[in-house]
């Protein structure tokens, strides 16, 4: 009897000792959005399983980007895991700033990660950040207004159809605008939408020799189409509207259509916040018959900065947060509509997830996006709504200002494009391209 107790006690002591020897406190920098906040709430599950404690630094997206960029370029070592996107990951991975995630165990099933996501977060086949959730863009439209206009939305519409439908649905006297699109300046705001849309019109940022292409007819066609459509069928003051402003307009029933991130689908169909929750349909982002659609691809992913002392604990966290088991944990606690979407193939094969109204169109949008071959003509860069080069964020920020001014009527489309061409050429020459 005594021997049994002694053995039990010894086992318990050694387990506690082993646990405390390897238990670490890891600091994670992340963005403030629904999926990330949900993950913070479930961190206890990770701590129970591994003994590691997690400290969160949650920041607004733009602040976070500046904060983690400063830290990683100076090797500040403030964070053990950083939440980064598809823009940063290939650039940082190539610079050797991130720990490669090529040794994840077999049960993690890295092959289950959607190929488009894996491709966008890898450099030469090596994964540098694991996708927590992924998104593309698609059309969200009001089924009742579409019916009222006597139209039927196809699964894969053209821009011509969308523009016609937007004008037909517009009823400005009653505060209904046929289409709400991003107009607020910023590389992640209007330029994400316009760069992706320009792909559908056959435009590109740079040719194979890194020459700016804003002086080409495809860009003029894109920008004129957008400005005219927004003037005819967009809400007033559209040059101030970003994701949140359009979300607010759509939820209040003021937009006929909204083309934006697929994650918005869960907001607009949530009856607690949206007045039109049961009147929303989904379709692929439009094309112009040139073989490319204007749907982007983005992932919020977890990466480990090179130089952290806690690589093993950080890897354990990433495996937990981006695993199939985590998806099941969220589903059990918060329902299938709240699981992080767009990262794993198995999610879309799960019969439980098939009932979620926006699941199919989200998957089709993600699958039809190809960051390595984003537009009609060949390009030297990777990325759909951005070009994954360090200079892009700065240049696109300035170009975004010019395009927003064109939308606001402060300058013509030609003037905006001429300025965009000049400033992009200058910046690229200065950067040595």
């Amino acid at each position, binding site marked *: 009897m005594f021997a049994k107790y002694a053995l039990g006690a010894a086992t318990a002591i050694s387990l506690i000792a082993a646990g405390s020897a390897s238990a670490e406190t890891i*600091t994670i*920098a992340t*963005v*403030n*959005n*629904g999926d990330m*906040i949900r993950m*913070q*709430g479930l961190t206890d599950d990770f701590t129970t399983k591994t003994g590691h404690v997690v*400290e*969160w*630094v*949650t*920041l*607004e*997206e*733009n*602040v976070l980007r*500046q*904060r983690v960029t*400063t*830290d990683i370029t*100076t*090797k*500040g*070592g*403030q*964070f053990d895991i950083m939440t980064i996107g598809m823009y940063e990951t290939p650039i940082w991975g190539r610079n050797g700033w991130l720990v490669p995630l090529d040794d994840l165990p077999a049960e993690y099933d890295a092959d289950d990660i959607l190929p488009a996501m894996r491709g966008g977060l890898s450099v030469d086949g090596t994964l540098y950040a694991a996708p927590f959730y992924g998104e593309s863009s698609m059309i969200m439209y009001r089924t009742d207004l579409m019916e009222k206009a006597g139209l039927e939305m196809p699964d894969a519409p053209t821009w011509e159809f969308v523009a016609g439908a937007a004008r037909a649905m517009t009823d400005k006297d009653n505060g209904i605008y046929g289409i709400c699109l991003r107009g607020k300046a910023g590389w*992640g*705001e209007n330029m994400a939408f316009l760069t992706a849309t320009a792909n559908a019109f056959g435009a590109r940022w740079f040719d194979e020799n890194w020459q700016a292409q804003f002086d080409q007819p495809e860009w003029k066609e894109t920008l004129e189409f957008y400005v005219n459509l927004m003037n005819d069928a967009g809400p007033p003051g559209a040059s101030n509207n*970003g*994701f*949140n402003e359009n*979300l*607010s307009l759509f*939820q*209040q029933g*003021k937009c006929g259509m909204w083309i934006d*991130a697929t*994650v918005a689908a869960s*907001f607009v169909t949530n009856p*607690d*916040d949206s007045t039109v929750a049961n009147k929303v349909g989904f379709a692929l982002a439009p094309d112009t018959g040139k073989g490319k659609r204007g749907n982007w691809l983005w992932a919020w992913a977890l990466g480990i900065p090179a130089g952290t002392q806690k690589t093993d604990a950080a890897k354990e966290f990433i495996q937990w947060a981006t695993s199939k088991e985590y998806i099941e944990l969220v589903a059990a606690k918060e329902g299938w509509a709240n699981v992080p979407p767009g990262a794993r193939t198995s999610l879309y094969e799960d019969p439980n997830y098939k009932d979620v109204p926006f699941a199919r169109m989200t998957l089709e949008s993600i699958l039809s996006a190809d960051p390595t071959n984003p537009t009609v003509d060949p390009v030297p860069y990777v990325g759909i709504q951005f070009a994954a080069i360090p200079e892009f964020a700065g240049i696109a920020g300035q170009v975004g200002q010019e395009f927003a001014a064109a939308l606001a009527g402060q300058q013509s489309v030609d003037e905006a494009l001429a300025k965009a061409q000049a400033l992009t050429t200058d910046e690229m020459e200065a950067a040595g391209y």
Partner: protein
Amino acid sequence: MARAITSQRKALNTALAWGVGLLIFFPILWTILTSFKTEAQAISDPPVFLFFDWTLENYSVVQQRSDYGRFLWNSIIIAGGSTILGIIIAVPAAWSMAFVPSKRTKDILLWMLSTKMLPAVGVLYPIYLIFIKLGLLDTKTGLVIVLMLINLPIIVWMLYTYFKEIPGEILEAARMDGATLREEVLYILTPMAIPGIASTLLLNVILAWNEAFWTLNLTAAKAAPLTAFIASYSSPEGLFYAKLSAASTMAIAPILILGWFSQKQLVSGLTFGAVK
């Protein structure tokens, strides 16, 4: 002879003052009101002003999600520490500039102020690298030093203007009576300049409390003050205005209360010396 003011004119002035006051206060009022709305009411169009279902849900969510007490404590230490340290350095500096000026005093004062014209982001990397070397990243000590340095020109300037109002003869008399330099500054100058020092103190606490560039960029999990607390509720992808408003209200409440109780000192200090 006092100028006669008609009662009509007085009423007009009062109304105007109230109008301007309310206009300035309105954004804060709106934030406080929004913090008691649901997320759907927060964005409703037309906006609802007072007649909505008041809820404390946002406060409970914020309390649950963040450790408000820790952020508040960090803010108090950083704002208070940097101000006190600044005053300790600035009093002797302002004394020498006010009472024993040299040919270059005016230039030095202007040069000090000119450092405020440099955009903070321009020195982010050098300061970040220095902080890494000294192990000051994400520490309250580091932020106390940085905020003291960036507010020091304002503290020196304010104290200098107040000290200029004090007649040099009083200090001279003290010196004649055998007061040492330390006694002169500590027992003669400081008590006479109390209103000025108090308002400098208050203004700098407010400036340091609201400072949102260095406090966000030099902290992570340990030393983050209330500015980081607010930043964690702002989101470009998702409508969380009611929760953001609740977080903002909680962040400004302490400084609002401090300002309310010390408004007399603040106003008398800011107008100190204007009437003789």
